[in-house]
């Protein structure tokens, strides 16, 4: 598994699952919060990656 994007997805999914079960009760609330967290992880990682793109290190 050498794909950074895939690894980021796996990391985001596993972390979001744990944080969702810590923070929320009830299936509906958990599903909503899980997708909110997952989208935040993925989008902010991509945005952060693009912002760091010009840095030489």
């Amino acid at each position: 598994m050498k794909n950074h994007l895939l690894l980021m997805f796996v990391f985001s999914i596993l972390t979001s699952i744990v944080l969702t079960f810590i923070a929320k009760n009830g299936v509906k609330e958990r599903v909503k919060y899980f997708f909110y967290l997952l989208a935040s992880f993925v989008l902010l990682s991509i945005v952060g990656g693009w912002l760091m793109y010009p840095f030489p290190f």
Partner: protein
Amino acid sequence: MEKEAAEEIREAIAPAGPLRTLVACVAGLCMPGLGHAFLGKWDRAITFFGSITLMFALGLQLNGRLFDPSLENFFSILKFFADAGSGLLYWMSWFRGAGVGDPTAYTYDYANVFIYVAGLLNVLVVIDAFDIALGRKR
């Protein structure tokens, strides 16, 4: 009907007592999700065990390093505590000689982050078990 529901909620958030709280926290520190299983929160227990164990195993599989308790410098102490948060997963792997790490591997940095975060998430899970045991949350 409402009375029964109210009684159920009251039972669900009743404090577990100091001994049960201590056992739940220690169990959770030993194995992800074990504290919740002890408190009867099986959905959380299974989820935490599965997710954190998978994250830790992926970290090892991707050539991550388990930082040992050698206390070389400040950052390796922090890395050790993050890794050791996984409890027995860390200690069993460490005693078996796993997690040597290969800094030249393409996935080395990612793998280390997987192992750190697995340990840190388990610490959060233990705090969650503590709150449940004290009746602060359901």
